[in-house]
């Protein structure tokens, strides 16, 4: 046995962060980023690691820890970057004190997401360094590097991974563990108080740092050139995990040089040098064509560039070794044709899940109205869109059920019903509920409370045991905060209450509450194991 551990990409990032001496990790669960924080919670009791209410609170808490001089990691899925964006972009203006690394896990092909936005654009937008590992080992090694870079440049560093790296396991060798930083709050108020006068100076300083960022990319140990001396007809610029897909096709045997990019901003010098040695370049990147667009502007419109924009690689979806192979002229092998007797097998709500009873009841009552609309949200209960329920009319972003129901009700839709999970409600639903209450909108909100963040595997939910108090505190009338137990035997009571609250002209909240069947079974198994 060697000292090599088999780790998921997420676990490698977590171990890298622990060994880099972080004092806190701040995160809201989101596939494919969840396992980073879970690993730190399980393996590093010295690191502050309680789940946050949403990505914005996480980003701000991490910035506060950095302000105090300590190293902090903040993790989220790509769409979480939208929630954290205000704090994220402005953290580049304040700069950092202790090292601050923002980890965004993107989901090309939308395995568990509603879009495939590429977080590298956020890094470019905020004008900070971006790291993009190609392997689990690199993900580990990059953490210590990222924190040092962050402290050297006095800027946050964005690390971007994709599902295939986050959720793939490989051997990782760990290095020595660093000490945590001592408490050392920043005294430079002009850096942190972003009044326009200060902000302009800070922004000017960020702009002035850009050449330094590019120099760091040019000399980065993670950017590497595998070139030949002679001029090649074709070269590959391979970003992050796309490097693996390029290498899988044996480019050296084909006489194809490869420039690996794992640190941004794009090193323009390296690109120009590489382009001089190649007649054409294939840009392989997993996500949106960020590098391709930049190469186009660096090399000019006349340079023969291939990639997602030119159709040499698919415009959307996860990259694969086959797609890269095809772009290099290698035919996809087909030893066996696709089978005939295969049907799609979509996921479904678990048997015994309380969300099922909620949708059964809602469908019964909604059928009594000609124009009922049910606005859904993000979580397991989004599966209520699929058969046999086909219950929801929308699912857009965290919290949108309540606010879209409000807008639709304001426009005249009746009944306008929102279905939102407990964790999603505290993440982004509470503020929208306050809008509806203040505007006396005619909506019925179902907070389907299963006492956990179930979709991502059962993490603690920020509002557990507090929902009635939150709704009352925001101003829902006490007689219109109703709690039910979603079980088939209670169907008559639940449908009656839904009817009553639909007929009430104002904001009402119904809380169907029953523990997630998965977390319940896990607890029972654990209990049985302890008894044995």
């Amino acid at each position, binding site marked *: 046995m060697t000292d090599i551990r*088999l780790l998921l990409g997420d676990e490698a990032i977590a171990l890298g962060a622990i060994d880099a001496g972080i004092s806190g990790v701040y995160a809201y669960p989101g*596939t494919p980023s969840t396992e980073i924080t879970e690993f730190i919670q399980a393996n590093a009791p010295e690191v502050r690691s309680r789940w946050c209410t949403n990505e914005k609170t996480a980003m701000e808490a991490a910035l506060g820890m950095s302000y105090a001089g300590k190293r902090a990691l903040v993790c989220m899925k790509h769409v979480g970057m939208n929630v954290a964006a205000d704090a994220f972009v402005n953290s580049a203006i304040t700069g950092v004190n202790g090292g601050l690394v923002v980890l965004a896990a993107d989901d090309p092909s939308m395995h568990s997401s509603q879009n495939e936005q590429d977080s590298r654009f956020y890094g470019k937008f905020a004008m900070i360094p971006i790291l993009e590992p190609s392997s689990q080992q690199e993900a580990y090694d990059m953490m210590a590097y990222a924190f040092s870079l962050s402290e050297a440049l006095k800027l946050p560093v964005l690390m971007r991974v994709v599902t295939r790296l986050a959720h793939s396991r490989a051997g990782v060798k760990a290095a020595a563990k660093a000490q945590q930083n001592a408490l050392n709050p920043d005294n430079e108020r002009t850096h942190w108080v972003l009044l326009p006068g200060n902000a302009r100076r800070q922004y000017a300083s960020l702009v002035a740092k850009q050449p330094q960022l590019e120099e760091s990319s040019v000399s980065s140990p993670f950017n590497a050139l595998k070139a030949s001396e002679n001029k090649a007809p074709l070269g590959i610029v391979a970003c992050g995990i796309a490097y693996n897909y390029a290498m899988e096709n044996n480019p050296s045997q084909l006489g194809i040089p490869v420039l690996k990019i794992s640190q941004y901003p794009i090193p323009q010098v390296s690109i120009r040098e590489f382009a001089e040695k190649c007649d054409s370049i294939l840009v392989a990147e997993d996500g949106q064509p960020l590098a391709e667009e930049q190469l186009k502007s660096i090399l000019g419109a006349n340079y023969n560039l291939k990639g997602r924009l030119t159709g040499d690689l698919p415009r959307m979806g996860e990259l694969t070794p086959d797609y890269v192979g095809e772009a290099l002229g290698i035919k996809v092998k087909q*030893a066996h044709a696709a089978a005939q007797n295969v049907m799609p097998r979509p996921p479904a709500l678990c048997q015994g899940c309380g969300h099922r009873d909620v949708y059964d009841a809602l469908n019964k009552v909604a059928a009594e109205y000609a124009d009922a609309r049910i606005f859904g949200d993000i979580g397991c209960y989004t599966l209520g869109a699929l058969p046999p329920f086909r219950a929801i009319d929308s699912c857009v972003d965290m919290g949108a059920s309540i606010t879209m129901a409000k807008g639709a009700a304001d426009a005249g839709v009746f009944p306008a019903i929102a279905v939102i999970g407990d964790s999603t409600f505290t993440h982004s639903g509470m503020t929208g509920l306050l809008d509806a209450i203040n505007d006396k909108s005619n909506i019925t909100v179902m907070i389907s409370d299963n006492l956990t963040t179930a979709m991502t595997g059962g993490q603690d939910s920020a509002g557990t045991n507090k929902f009635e108090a939150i709704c009352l505190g925001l101003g829902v009338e006490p007689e219109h905060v109703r709690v039910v137990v979603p079980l088939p035997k209670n169907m008559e009571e639940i449908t009656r209450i839904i009817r009553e609250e639909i007929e009430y002209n104002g904001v009402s909240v119904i809380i169907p509450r029953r523990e997630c069947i998965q977390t319940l079974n896990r607890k029972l198994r654990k209990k049985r194991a302890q008894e044995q």
Partner: protein
Amino acid sequence: MKKDIILAGVGGQGILTIATIIGDAAANADISLKQAEVHGMSQRGGDVQSNLRLSTETIYSDLIKQGEADLIISMEPMEALRYVPFLSEQGWVVTSSHPFKNIPNYPDDEALMNELNSLPNIKSLPIEDVAKDNNIPKCANIVLLGMAAKHLEIISSEQLRESIARVFAAKGENVVNMNLMAFDAGLNAVK
């Protein structure tokens, strides 16, 4: 030497346990490994698959190219068929023959098995029945691992037995023995 394996099944059938055992064996034998797992929404009773790559050389891609998988190990017959485009010409399919029907339009049993059996290299058994007959109903996935053991080649059956003992050690001697029995039942069933 390399072995590219696709593990397939339905969420909750235990394919990741098979992956964990093979992974443990590979790590102990100093064989390189990459294993892409499925998490998140796909686990709720939907189809799940894992690309497991073993090699004595450097492995780059986490994903297997089409037509290059040496082995498909599946807990469910239709799920085995789903990944046939990834199977190499001489690749093996080792699968449970017991359908898991949680969709209304599941294919006809006979047509499904005929198509499976038309593949050149296939081993299929009702692994749940084998597990029940041996009084180890919860170990069907390890029966399947036993059936596939010979085709792993890069790792020996003895190395897999040691890994089963290590992976289940925390659950007690009884669980270890049941899973070793399941492994041998699978191994012997396809001799």
